[in-house]
C-alpha cells in the first residue's frame, strides 16, 4: 500500500509537467496578445508601448525560453506576475482566493453526496413506487438542466419576484462564518444539483445490483433486520463505484465553479482563471489550472486509498 502511494506521488509531478506543457502551448498558439489586453485600451498608444510591454514580460522570446522560465519559477513556488496591470503576484492572488473555491467545492461535494446518496438509497429500496418515479424524474431534470442556466434563474428570479438575490457581497469565512455560509451555499447548491442527480441514479443502480445478490439473500435468511441488511451489506458494497463517481465529479465541480463564481460574484480561483483567459494573461491561466489539476490528482489518489478502507479485500 505504502509503495503504491509513493509510486502515485512520484507520478504526480510528471502529470503536472505534462499538463503545464500542453496548457502553455495552447495558450502560446492562440491568436491575440496579452499586450493588447493590458494596454490596448490606450487609444493612441505608441506602438513602442507594446514592444516595451512584450520585452518587460519576455513575451518576445521563443516559447521554450518562456516556458522554461515559468517552469523554473513554479518549481520554486513563484508563478510569476500577472500580465495585466497592476501586475500582482500570481501566487499571492491564488492564495487569497483559493480558500473560497475550496469552500464552495467541498460544500458542493457534501450537498451532492447527502442528496445523491439519500435519494438513490430511497429510490432503490422503494423501487417502482411513486416516490421512486418522482425521484427518477427529478434526477433526469437535474442532469438535463445546465448548471449555468439554473444559476441564472436562482440569481435572477428571486430578485424579480421578491427583491432578494443570493448573489450578495462576499464575506470570507473567518470574518463572519454564518453569513459566509449563507452566501457559499447557493453556488454550491447550483453546482450540486447535477452531480447529486447523477449520483442518485448511480447509487440506485448500484444498490439494485447488490440488493439481489446471494450474500444479501443470505443475510436476510439469517433473520437480520432490514436496516442492517440495507446499511451494513447493500449500501457498503455499492459504495465503491459511488466513491469513484464522487472523485470524478470533482472535475465537473471544478469546471462548474468557474461559471458559478462569476455568476454569484465569489472572488475565487474560477473567476481568477476566467479573468486570465479573457486578458490572455498566461501566468494566471497556467497558475490557476495547475492548482485545479493538483487538487484533482490528489483527490483521485485519495479515492484510490479510500477503496481499501471500504473494501478490505482490495490491495495494491
Amino acid at each position, binding site marked *: 500500500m505504502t509503495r503504491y502511494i509513493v509510486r502515485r506521488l512520484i507520478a504526480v509531478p510528471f502529470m503536472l509537467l505534462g499538463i503545464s506543457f500542453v496548457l502553455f502551448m495552447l495558450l502560446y498558439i492562440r*491568436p*491575440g496578445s*496579452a499586450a*493588447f489586453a493590458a*494596454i*490596448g485600451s*490606450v*487609444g*493612441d*498608444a*505608441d506602438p*513602442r*508601448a507594446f514592444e*516595451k510591454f512584450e520585452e518587460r514580460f519576455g513575451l518576445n522570446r521563443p516559447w521554450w525560453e518562456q516556458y522554461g522560465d515559468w517552469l523554473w519559477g513554479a518549481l520554486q513556488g513563484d508563478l510569476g506576475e500577472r500580465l*495585466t*496591470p*497592476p501586475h500582482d503576484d500570481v501566487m499571492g492572488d491564488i492564495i*487569497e*482566493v483559493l480558500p473560497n473555491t475550496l469552500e464552495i467545492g467541498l460544500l458542493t461535494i457534501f450537498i451532492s453526496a447527502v442528496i445523491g446518496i439519500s435519494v438513490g438509497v430511497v429510490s432503490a429500496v422503494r423501487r417502482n413506487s411513486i416516490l*421512486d*418515479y*418522482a*425521484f*427518477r*424524474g*427529478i434526477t*433526469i*431534470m437535474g*442532469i438535463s438542466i445546465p448548471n449555468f442556466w439554473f444559476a*441564472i434563474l436562482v*440569481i*435572477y428570479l*428571486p*430578485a*424579480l419576484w*421578491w*427583491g432578494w*438575490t443570493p*448573489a*450578495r*457581497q*462576499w*464575506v470570507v469565512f473567518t470574518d463572519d462564518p454564518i453569513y459566509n455560509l449563507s452566501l457559499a451555499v447557493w453556488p454550491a447548491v447550483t453546482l450540486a444539483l447535477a452531480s447529486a442527480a*447523477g449520483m442518485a*441514479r*448511480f447509487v*440506485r*443502480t448500484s444498490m*439494485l445490483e447488490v440488493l439481489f445478490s446471494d450474500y444479501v439473500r443470505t443475510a436476510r435468511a439469517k433473520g437480520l433486520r432490514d436496516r442492517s441488511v440495507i446499511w451494513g451489506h447493500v449500501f457498503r458494497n455499492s459504495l465503491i463505484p459511488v466513491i469513484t*463517481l464522487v472523485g470524478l465529479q470533482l472535475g465537473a465541480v471544478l469546471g462548474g465553479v468557474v461559471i458559478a463564481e*462569476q*455568476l*454569484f*460574484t465569489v*472572488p475565487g480561483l474560477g*473567476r481568477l482563471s*476566467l*479573468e486570465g483567459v*479573457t*486578458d490572455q494573461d498566461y501566468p494566471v491561466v497556467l497558475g490557476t489550472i495547475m492548482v485545479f489539476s493538483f487538487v484533482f490528482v490528489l483527490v483521485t489518489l485519495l479515492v484510490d486509498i479510500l477503496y481499501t478502507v471500504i473494501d478490505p479485500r482490495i490491495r495494491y
Partner: protein
Amino acid sequence: MRDNENYWQRLRRRPVSRRSFLVGSGVAAAGSAAILAGCGDDDDDDAAAPAATQAAAEEQAAAATEAAAEEQAAAATEAAAATQAAAQEDTGPDKRGGTLLNWKTEEDAGLDPGVFHLSNREIHNGTMTQPYTYQATKNLFSMDGMVGFEQVDPTTFVWSIRPGMKFHNGDVVDSEAVAFSFGRLEKLYRALDGTHTTRTGYAFVDSFEATDELTVAEHWARPNADAPVYRAAHYYSFLNPRMVDEFGKFEGSYEGPDGVVEDVYSVQELPHGSGSGPYTMTKRDSTGTRIERWPDYHKHTPADDGFVEDGPYIDAWETRIIPDAVAAKAAFLAGDLDIFTTVDPLEVPEFEGQDHVNVVEITGDGGLCMQGMDGGKFHDKRSRQALQKSLDYEGFIAAIRPLGGQYAAPITDLLPAYQKLSQQDLQEWYRFDPAEAQALWQAADFVVPVENIKIFQSTGAPLQHEISDFLAQSIATALGPIGVTTEVEAVDGNSWAARAVDRSTDVKDWEILSYGTGDRSGTDGIPNNSFLINYDPRAYGFNAFNHYLESPRPEIAEGSATIIEMLNAQEAETDPEARGVLLTELQRWILDNHWCNWRLPVSSVSYFGFSSRLQDQGAADWLNGYSLRRESMWLQS
C-alpha cells in the same frame, strides 16, 4: 404596449407569493418527474439635475473660450447661488448620510490617475480633488479645487486655486502640487509610451508654472479651444508630490524639451495622503472598494452646481465587484445597488412595476455604431460610396432600433453647439440605392480585388451580432447580383483589437470593421472624442482603417492631408460660432467623401437605472463621466 405583451411579460408582472411559488414549483417538479420517469425504463443501468440651473445653462451655450470663460465664471456663480438657494430650501438633516451602493465589473488596474483608468474612477472621483466638473449637457463648469480660471491671452491660461485645501495627511494643496499634478501626465505618457490620459489634452502645452502660492499658469504652444473641457477630466486630479516622492514606483525616464532627463514615478496604490477629496479609501480588495467621508474636507464656498458647501451629502460609497451582468441586474432589482447605469432598451419592461427602481430616459444620440472601411482596399471613393448605398437604413432602424432610431453624423448631437446637421440634412447621405451601389462598385478602381466582404466584429454584445448580420444581408442584397458575397467573422475582444490595428501589411484581413452598438449616449464635450478621432489619419484612421498621410494609395494620402488641415483649424478656433461652421464643413467633407468610417443609425433614447432613493444624481451626464463627482447627490431614507 400592454396589448403587445406576451404571456411571460404578463406573468412577470403578476405578484407571486413565496407560498404560491413553492406550491407551484412542487406541483411542477412532481408532474415533470412523473412524466419523465414514465418516459423510459432504462434507468437502472444509467450512470450517468436642479431646475434652477437651467437659466445658467442656457447662458452657457458657448464653449469655453477667452470670452466664454468670463461668462462662465459669472454663470457658474449665478448657478451656484440658485442651486444654493434651492438646496437650502429643501435641505434638511435627512439629506445627509447613507451609503451609496455602487458596482463595477472588475478590480482596478492601479490607482494612479495618470496611468490607467480601468475600474478606478470611483476612487479618483471620491478621494481626489479636480479643477472643476463639466456637465456636457448643460455646457456648465462647476468649480471644485479651483475658484476660477482666465484665458489671459490665446496661449496663456491661468488658474486660481481654492484656498484652505489640505491633502488627507495634512499637507497643504498649493500651486506647486497642482502644477506637479498637471505636468506629470505627459511625463508618464512618454515614460510609459502611452497611458490612459488623453495626449491631445496636453500636447499643445509648453509648461505648467506655479506663479504664486495659489496660482498656476499654463503656457501653450498654440491656441486650443478644448483645453478647458480637457481639464475637467478626472486625471487632472491634485496629487500630493510628497507621497509620490516617498512611495512612488519608478516607471521610466522622460527627456524634456531642454534635453534634461527626468525619472518618472507612479503611485498605483494611492497611499493615504495622496488626495484631498471628500472621502478617504477604507477598503480595496477583490470584493470591491469602500470610501468614507473625510471629516476635515475643506469648505466648498461658493458651492457650484453639483457641489455642497459642507461636503457631500452621502457618507460613504460601497463599490462591489460584480463581473456578471445578470448578477448585477439581480442585485439592482433586489435593492442591493443604487446605480445600475445603462439599461438595454429591450429590457426596460423588466424594470417596470418595481417601486425601488427608477429608470430614467435620456434623449439624444445613442453613441458609437460604426462601419469602418479598409482604405487599403477601398481607396477609390466610389467603392466606399457603393458600400454606403448598399445599406437599407430604414430597414436597419426598423430591425435594430425598434424603440426609436436616428441618423448619426460624425459628431454627436449631444454637442448642439457643434452639431448643426439635422436629420433632414443627413438623409442626403443615408440613401439605400442598390442600382447606384452596383454602378459605383463596377466603376470603382481596386488595387486589391474585392469579391467577398468580410464584416469583422468582436463577440460580446448580442446586438453587435445583429448589426453585423444586417449589414451583411443588406450589402449582399445590393451587391450580390454583381457577384459580391458577404460574411461575418466574430472573434474575442483581444483578437479583434489585435487584427483591427494590425499594420503588418498595406491591407487588412477584413473589409469592414463593425464596432459599437449605438444604444447608449455619452460625451465628454470634446468633438474629437465624440467622434472625430475615428476619422483622424493620426489616430484610428491610421491605426485601424489605413486612412493616413503616408498611404501608398494617392487618393487616401491626399484626403488625409485635407482632413488633418480641417481638424487642426477647428481645434484652434476659439470662437464657438466660427468653430461650429468649421466643424459643419468638416462633417460634410467626411460624408461627401465617405471617409474612413460610416456611422450607422443609432438609438434616439438611452435608459439609465438608479434606485428610487438616489436623488439629484445628474442622470443626463452620468455616462459623460462627471456625475460620479456630484456631491449634491443624496439618499432618501
